């Protein structure tokens, strides 16, 4: 008996990405650079978040031509982003056979009430979250991987830290509650009770948890691993820096050796300037991407 697209098969690919770095790329050349540096997967998108921020306007799914070009160039998994709630963009990405779909707040949301019904797809989804309730609602909708949102395109790690600490801290608190307190806890964080029960029992999410949004240096990546991330997404941090190939290799090395500060130090040497960064706390509230999605 052969079963495709079971939840184990969907979340299993994320298990294989653990301890790895997923890099944003905008063309085949960048994808090759990422693969050669040891990226565990690439995220194909038209503009990295830093450019989406700078250019403004509506950010959409990427051109299938570009995604197909990247798929032909690399052998590692290729992910691509769909707008929140835009299930038709997701259908297009599924037809292209991308390996993972990111229903992403970095793009302009298409539906202000509903996220995509991700159970209805054969291709797995990763979704962003700023807290545990949001993560578990996405899992309830079928997400097979979660990433903390951070604040994409800033190069400022503070929001990533906030979201990761929030998620991990809330998980820890759930494990200390009695069985009879879980229904109220589920109601308070507006998450499905059965998933809340599972998290309370296991002390972890039922899917892999990565970190995203604001990672610019090897030490940033190591910090997020130490805070409980099982791997990292790096968006603008690689290809908006001065020497992307060198920085990409360094972030990969620091993600593997996050427990060894001497190795993180070695990886951090002589990388040249990081991306041009924005301080998240100086952004206007309508510029905050992490507030998209609910």
């Amino acid at each position, binding site marked *: 008996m052969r079963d495709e*697209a079971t939840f*184990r098969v969907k979340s299993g690919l994320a298990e294989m990405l653990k*301890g790895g770095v997923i890099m944003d790329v905008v063309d085949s050349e960048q994808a090759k650079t990422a693969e050669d540096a040891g*990226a565990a997967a690439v995220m194909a998108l038209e503009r990295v978040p830093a450019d989406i921020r700078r250019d403004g306007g509506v950010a959409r799914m990427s051109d299938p031509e570009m995604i197909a070009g990247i798929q032909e160039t690399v052998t590692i*998994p290729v992910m691509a982003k769909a707008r929140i709630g835009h299930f038709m963009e997701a259908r297009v990405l599924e037809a292209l056979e991308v390996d993972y779909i990111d229903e992403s707040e970095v793009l302009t949301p298409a539906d202000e009430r509903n996220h995509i019904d991700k159970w209805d797809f054969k291709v797995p989804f990763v979704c962003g979250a700023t807290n545990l309730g949001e993560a578990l609602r996405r899992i309830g909708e079928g997400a097979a991987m979660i990433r903390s949102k951070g604040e994409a395109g800033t190069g400022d790690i503070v929001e990533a830290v906030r979201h990761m600490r929030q998620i991990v801290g809330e998980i820890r608190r759930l494990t200390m509650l009695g069985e009879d307190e879980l229904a109220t806890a589920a109601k308070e964080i507006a998450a499905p009770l059965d998933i809340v029960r599972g998290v309370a029992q296991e002390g972890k999410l039922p899917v892999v948890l990565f970190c995203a949004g604001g990672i610019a240096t090897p030490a940033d990546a190591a910090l997020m691993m130490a805070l409980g991330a099982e791997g990292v997404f790096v968006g603008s941090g690689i290809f908006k820096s001065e020497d992307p190939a060198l920085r990409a290799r360094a972030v990969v090395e620091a993600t593997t050796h996050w427990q060894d500060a001497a190795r993180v130090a070695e990886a951090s040497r002589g990388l040249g300037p990081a991306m041009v960064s924005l301080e998240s706390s100086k952004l206007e509230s309508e510029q905050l991407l992490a507030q998209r999605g609910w």
Partner: protein
Amino acid sequence: MGERAHAGGPLIGVLALQGGFDAHERMLAGLGAQTREVRVPADLEGLDGLVIPGGESTTMTLGVEREGLAEPLREFVASGRPVLGSCAGLIMLDRSHLGLMDVEARRNAFGRQIASFEADLDVAGMPGGPMRAIFIRAPWIAEHGPEVEILASVDGHPVAARQGHLIGVAFHAELGSDDRLHEMLLRLVGETAGSA
């Protein structure tokens, strides 16, 4: 962190450069083994056996180069200690990578993620009936030498093989609850230790 103690059990390393290493650790710990994550050559010292997990074989290959692990891994195998390679781990063992098993794996042979699947698989020498095997962007064995015993196939393509004290499988048992493949590794470890 990185090492799970279980007094008395064999000490099994799990290559942890990148990939699904902690699922293997959980399964091995459940069988009473001690585990250690392997990232640098020194981590191989004193191990009774090794698992090379799934993940991305390009990422792992670069990691093996960066850490200078290729030669220490070859010495490890030459010393007769058992190794289980799963998915990317099978690829790492093949002729084009570490050259430890006389097989040639074809990467992503079953296709992209949308073609990933799970199935009941009859594995030769495995007591207790078929095992639930999870194939994720999985390879298969395209060619193999005469020393290699094929243990299981899907659609006529070999997906599990044994060559002496080396086991290579294209699928993931560690993502399910069937621990018989890991038991097979520990049995080999027991036999090796007994003959030493």
